[in-house]
Each structure stands twice: as C-alpha cells, then as structure tokens.
C-alpha cells in the first residue's frame, strides 16, 4: 500500500528532485518486500541488487543529471495536477478490478498483484502526460517497478539470472536515457518533448 502511495505522490508532485526521492523510496520499499518474502537465498540477493542499484545508484545518477542540466522545478504536464491525480485514481480502480483476475493460483502474494498492475498504469500515465524528458524516464522506471512487483508477487521468485538481467536492463536504459536527455538539451536547448514535434529542415 505504501508502494502505491509513492506511485501517487510521483504523479502529484511537480518538483523533479522530489520525484527522484519518491522513486528511491519506492525502491527501498520494494526491496523490503523482497526481503520479507524471501525464504530461499536468492530473493535476498535480488533485494540487495534492487536496493543498491535502483534505490541508490539510479537516483544518484538522476540527481547528478538534473544538477548538471540545471533543471529542477516545474515539470510541465498536459494535464493539471488535480486532473492527472483523478485520472490516476481511475487507473488504479481499473488496475484493481483487472488485477484480481491476474492473480495465479500459486501466487506468493496475490494481494500485491492489483497494486503492481496499478503501478504499471500509473507509470504509463506519467509517461504519457508529462512533457519533460526526465519525467518520462521516471515514469518508465515506475512502470518497471510495477513489473518487478508483479514478478515478485506472482511467482515464487524468478530465476536469479532473469532478476539480474532485468535490473541491469533498467540501469542501462537509465544511462542511455540520461545520455539522450543530455543530447536533447545540447541540441535543442530545452527538454520539452512537446516542442519537438515541428520538423527542422
């Protein structure tokens, strides 16, 4: 539930640094859940990887990126904050309604499946409605967290290699996105994807 709350706070805040902090908090909570669920060894390992990589490294990388780009405030959005929060509420309702059908018979934590679906939908919402490239990356990361939570709750633990692969994948994606964002900033002088639709000839 607290994980879902961080998802909502991510939709609701404008300040980018606050967004990154909420993302880190979400990861720490997820890692805690992984520890709590672990009976065998490798979920502990996955939890540690999650904590170090996504709870510490990615937020620090993003914060450093924000500092270098000197953007920190006023994320622009296609929807106003209240409207996107209400949309988020509707999406969470959909997620809960659909999520119950998603729970497999042998799921480790069937209660968390709707939360995971909702988190995926909320991540998609912030990817779709925000204008700044950095926030879209954060939306992607929240979505990825939803996928991780889904995997955590549906199965008795994925094989270790897949967990590591997914975690590294996310990290690589963030690094790539970071480089892309820097290039966008260099070439266009801003990070507003809405203004990138005109063709340049």
């Amino acid at each position, binding site marked *: 539930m607290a994980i879902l709350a961080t998802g909502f706070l991510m939709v609701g805040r404008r300040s980018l640094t606050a967004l990154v902090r909420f993302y880190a908090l979400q990861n720490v909570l997820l890692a805690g859940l992984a520890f709590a669920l672990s009976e065998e060894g490798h979920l502990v390992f996955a939890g540690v990887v999650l904590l170090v990589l996504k709870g510490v490294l990615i937020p620090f990388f993003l914060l450093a990126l924000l500092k270098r780009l000197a953007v920190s405030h006023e994320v622009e959005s296609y929807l106003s904050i209240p409207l996107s929060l*209400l949309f988020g509420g509707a999406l969470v309702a959909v997620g*809960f309604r659909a999520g119950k059908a998603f729970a497999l018979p042998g799921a480790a934590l069937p209660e968390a499946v709707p939360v995971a679906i909702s988190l995926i939908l909320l991540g998609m919402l912030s990817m779709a409605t925000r204008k700044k490239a950095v926030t879209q990356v954060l939306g992607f990361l929240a979505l990825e967290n939803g996928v991780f939570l889904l995997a955590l709750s549906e199965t008795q633990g994925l094989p270790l290699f897949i967990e590591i692969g997914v975690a590294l994948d996310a990290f690589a994606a963030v690094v790539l996105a970071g480089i892309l964002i820097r290039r966008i900033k260099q070439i266009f002088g801003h990070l507003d994807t809405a203004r990138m639709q005109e063709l340049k000839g």
Partner: protein
Amino acid sequence: MSAVLLLLLAPLFTGCLKWVKARLQNRQGPGPLIDYFNLLKLAQKSYIVPETASAVFLLGPSLSFLGAVLAATMLPVFPGLSFTGDFLLVLYLLNLGRFFQALAALDSGSAFGGQGSYRESLVAVLTEPGTILALSAVALSSQELSLASLAPLSAQNLLVYALALAALLLSLVAEGARMPVDDPATHLELTMIHEAQLLDHSGPLLALYELASGVKMLSYLALASLLLPLSHVLAFLLMVVLGLAGLAIIETYGVRLRYLRLPDLLTYNTLAGILAMLGVVLRFRI
C-alpha cells in the same frame, strides 16, 4: 458528554499546540493554559459592530459555535446521541457554522472579510467531497450508518480505513485552517484565509469563533480516531496527542502552500475519498 469534553478540551488543545510549537522553535512561549485566560479576557470585553452590518454579523459567531457544539454532541467519544446517518449531520453542522461565518464576514463590509470568505469557501468546496465520500465509504463497509457502530479495523477493510484516515487528516488540516493550507499565525491580511474572516469581530464574538474552531479541530480528530482499533476514549486521546505533535511539527518545519496550489494538495483528499468508495463498492482488498 462528548460535547462537554470537547468544549473543555478545545482551549487546552489550541494552547498546547501553541506551547509545543514555541518549544520546537526554541522559544519560551506562553504556557499550555494560555487560551483559557485568553477566552476569559475576550469574554469580559465589549464588542464593536460595524455601521454597515446587520443581524447576520452577530449570528455568524453564535451559529458557528452552536454548529460545532451540536456536531460534537453526536461524536461517540462517550456514548451519547446516535442515530442512522449521523455522520452526514455532523459534517454538515460543521459546514453550517462555516457558511454563517462567511456570511458574517461578508456582512462586515470590509474588503478583507469578503476576501477571506471567498477563499475559505474554495477550501470548503475542495474538502467536502473527499470527507463525505471517505466517511460514507467507512459507513458502507461496516454496513452501519451511524458513527457509534462503525466496524472495527480488520484485514477486510484495511484499505478503505487507511484511505479514509488519510482523507480525514487532510480535511482536518484544511478545515482547521492549519499550516499547509492556511497559516494561523500570520499577521498579514493579504495572505489570510480563515483569520481574515474574523478581523472585524472582537470581544466575546471572537471568543466564540476561537472556541468553535478549537472544537471543530477536535471533532475532526475524533472522527479520525473512530477508525483506530482502540476503545473510543483511548483512540481519541491518542489521536489528540498525535494531532498535536503532527501539527506542531508541520507548522515548525513546513511552509504554507501558495493559495493557487491548494487544489493540488486537496485533490489527494478527494482522490482518497473516491478510492475508498470504489474500494467498498468493488470490494478491493490488500
């Protein structure tokens, strides 16, 4: 019983809040009993009525006080008055007081009164749906429509109760005119919301207003305390202490939101209410 308790406790609560806040800010500050003396002093003074004002000017403080006290009688901190649907009556009695308060402020004919009135009306509009939805959701989930017989917290209704608690605490902050929404300690009329309505009332009228707002805050705390899995009195006392600490910390370390950003904050209230309602209707569970 509960009304008497809340009435007696209200000055202590606001006084304690001032005292804790002063201590957190490394000030000496007045003692916790300051508001009893304050009310006594105000009650002995005479009051001034503006030349343009009508009878509504006097009606405002008395009705906002009466509304708060009547609402407090229906709170089941101690067993008292209780009937089906009383939670709606409690909330709307509290809002009735606010309505007359806004009217009285408009009636005073001063610009600041009108400004405060329209601002507070906006806050009221933003808070009402969330509060009503949250309490209705709790009532529906316990299948009893009176406050005294709400079902205790259990794994079945954890999600609904947590969402309702969040909504009620947010409305406590908004309705009590506390920090992220309104700054009770401001002396600048342009930034006031709640205080701007009281500017023209003096003496006993002001005392009634102060007492009413104290009772109102305690009422919201009492409503929130009904959701805790403890006996009513114990939960109420716990909630009061938590509320004191929480408000003092927010008002020491936090800042006030800009007036135009208030909808951003208060949408969380509405959202929590809607989700709680959906949680009941569609039987969500965590």
